[in-house]
């Protein structure tokens, strides 16, 4: 079943994060007035982002200056001859028409720029079609692109408190890493200010204290932390809970197992 929504309510960053964490494969179709975009994912990574139908065609490689027209025609013939799951990019590499680095960096740059533009959309309907794959001759990234840093880039463009408050209701909260940060961080390409915030997260200081210690505004600190949250690296906890670490949480009424079993049996029999 397709996933349907609007990026006004469920932001593109949130959606990318969902694709990442869910290792999703499929195509995300976006429309905003007369603009459209299509993003193809494989196991949570980005293969291609097209802002126009032409961006899904082999000719993109000519426009990006990776191939000339003759080479493209030759590559397309070779692709048709080989068929069966081979991608255009692979054919280009196998024929020695471009180095893997050159091809990857051209496609990655194009894909990233295409996605950045989407973050400017204030709204837009989306439909995610599970397992929909690009055409066999589409110019796909040689290595699927990690989306951590796209998520972060989307968050950088947030300029209003309201969006951030959804997840960060107060600056008295304490950010705490869920696991030792590692792999993800590499892909995120943090800015110097974001590094400052990152370096100050110790599981004890509140957001307000981090702002004070780094000399950054509350907003800048919260926005960076929002990015870390969206990337699934952090949780926010209340100060009391941190201080009370090791103490039991607020007492819940503890019930006798026999009583719970009686309720279970009754509901089963209904």
């Amino acid at each position, binding site marked *: 079943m397709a996933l349907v929504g609007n990026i006004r309510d469920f932001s593109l960053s949130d959606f990318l994060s969902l694709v990442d964490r869910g290792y999703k494969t499929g195509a995300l179709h976006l429309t905003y007035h007369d603009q459209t975009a299509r993003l193809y994912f494989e196991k949570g990574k980005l293969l291609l982002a097209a802002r126009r139908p032409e961006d899904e065609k082999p000719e993109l490689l000519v426009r990006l200056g990776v191939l000339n027209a003759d080479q493209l025609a030759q590559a397309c013939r070779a692709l048709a001859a080989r068929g069966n799951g081979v991608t255009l990019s692979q054919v280009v590499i196998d024929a020695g028409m471009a180095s893997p680095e050159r091809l990857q960096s051209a496609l990655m740059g194009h894909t990233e720029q295409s996605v950045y533009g989407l973050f400017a959309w204030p709204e837009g309907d989306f439909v995610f079609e599970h397992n929909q794959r690009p055409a066999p001759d589409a110019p796909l990234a040689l290595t699927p692109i990690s989306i951590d840093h796209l998520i972060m880039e989307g968050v950088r463009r947030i300029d209003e408190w309201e969006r951030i408050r959804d997840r960060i209701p107060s600056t008295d909260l304490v950010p705490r890493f869920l696991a030792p940060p590692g792999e993800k961080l590499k892909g995120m390409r943090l800015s110097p200010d974001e590094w400052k915030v990152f370096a100050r997260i110790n599981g004890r200081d509140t957001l307000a204290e981090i702002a004070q210690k780094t000399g950054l505004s509350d907003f800048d600190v919260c926005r960076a932390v929002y990015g870390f949250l969206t990337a699934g690296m952090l949780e926010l906890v209340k100060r009391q809970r941190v201080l009370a670490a090791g103490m039991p949480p607020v007492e819940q009424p503890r019930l006798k197992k026999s009583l719970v079993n009686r309720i279970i049996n009754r509901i089963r029999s*209904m």
Partner: protein
Amino acid sequence: MQTVKMVISGAVNAGKTEFIRTISEIEVVSTERRATDDTRLIKKETTVAMDFGRIAISDDLVLHLFGTPGQKRFDFMWEILAEGMLGLVILVDSTRPETFRETNRIIDFFVSYRDTPYVIAANKQDRPNAWSPDELRLALRQPPHIKVLPCTATDRESVKNVLLELLYVIQERSED
């Protein structure tokens, strides 16, 4: 007579009233009013104070089901309803991603101060375009140990299943 209480919460129009109606043994006591403000665009009647349903367990034990009002301006009721609850069902309208943020706010409210057992019910699974429980788990960022269950609040077996799954969570924490 001992009473135990469960709370059914969730954003406006998630299906709370429906859920309780489907399982309660008595006619549900609802304080429905003609919806005003934005809610009016989605539905005619909305719960303004609470829903109340009941299941008798035995002569000396009764289970009360309380549904919270969905609209934000009735938040004050939540604290009162949450007092001493056994567990919590968070209902989500799986066809409306625009309510997911609000759902997280509600989970936060009930769960951050107390260690309340809860499950999430991905409601309206019978409708086209419903997000699946797995997708809801990702969207709501729920950890793996929290159950996210398929639900159709109009279907009695489905409602029973959600309540039972919550009871199993409560059972694990109960004492011998």
